[in-house]
């Protein structure tokens, strides 16, 4: 507490960690996408390429949330 610089960097670290909490949601989303994709491929193996493409697309969108969080965390640590 006596060193304001150390305090600020500690707070930055906490903030970045909190920002990355959104990775929970992204992880769940990616998991659900993979679950649905694999189930669909199991039921209809003929449509696997189409399902795979759309699955990866969906996973990418779900992952985007975590990526924004990552961007925010990086900005907090390095740029703010």
């Amino acid at each position, binding site marked *: 507490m006596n060193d304001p610089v150390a305090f600020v960097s500690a707070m930055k670290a906490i903030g970045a960690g909190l920002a990355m909490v959104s990775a929970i949601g992204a992880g769940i989303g990616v998991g659900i996408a993979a679950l649905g994709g694999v189930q669909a491929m199991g039921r209809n193996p003929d449509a696997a390429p189409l399902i795979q*493409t759309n699955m*990866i*697309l969906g996973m*990418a969108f779900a992952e985007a949330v975590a990526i*924004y969080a*990552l961007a925010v965390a990086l900005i907090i640590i390095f740029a703010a």
Partner: protein
Amino acid sequence: MSEVETKKRRFGFKRWIVLALIALGVYTAFLGPTIFRPISPVVVLPPEGTGLEIFGFPITNTILGTLIADLVVILLGLSAYRFHKSGQIVPSGVYNFFEVIVQFLWNTVEGAAGNKWGKRIFPVVATIFLLIFVANLSKLIPGYESFGQIKELHHGVGYAPVKLFTIGSLNVYTIDKGQPVEAGHADEEHAASDDKSAAYSVAAYAEGGDELCHSCEVVPFLRGAATDLNFPLALAISTVFLVQVFGVWALGPAYFEKFFQIRALVRGGILGSVNFVVGLLELILEFAKVLSFSFRLFGNIFAGTLLLSILGALTAVLIPVGLYFFEIFFGIIQAYVFFLLATMFISIALVSHHAEEHH
């Protein structure tokens, strides 16, 4: 009988090699002299200069990495050029590998955008894939991020340099994990005693071609292209820009109605204004695409590099092997995801927004 014996011996031989490597790893990481011990790298986001400059433009280590990836990709392209010039029919060697990749990509692109537009967008997306693919895999080559210049660390804990051997006028140093030096102290010490040691230092610098330091870090000559935000950001900006270009190419000015749904606004009603706002949101989404594209690639690769070096510094043996496989997998997957998303966005932009609405 003899065959079985040779087989057994060969298996045993390989096993001994692996065991010897593990023993060597354990020795260097935990038992041997401290200069062999792996050092946790200094985490820096921006690319570091290598001291090279072309017309005043500094060549950073990530730019060198990018250029090496470019070189490999161009060599692949040259193999294709040579093959098709030779008029052979059966592909072989490097070209065969290249053709397998291109065929895979072409099938995906053709499936998403059709034959006609597929041919137009293919050079863009295939180059994206190849560049990221080669960059991600080449950065896993040992030595890629460990050879470099020794430089003075400005804050944190650095290590004292140790001279290993000399080739001609070039002195090769390593940094010793057994001699940690606090950066701030070193600076102060240096500042305090600059007058006395100046002559000696200058001589040493001139001889070694390196800048000797007290609290040192290694600045690698080569760094994975994707660990520099500029590389994925450049690809993302190019991709999103090309999405608009291809959209306009396919639909003409009508493409922009996707963002500014003036027709819906004029038609009126609550739904019309909602549609207008949604269109504006799509415009914002285009910028979000740039962000997600670039940070996805950068985040994955940078985190992978970080994980590899930090875990490698902590447990130098066995665990990094698994992580290397993980990194190879992720390198390929990220290249594929970037490629696939680019293909998808472009092929979605090719289709008229209104045509869908009317159906």
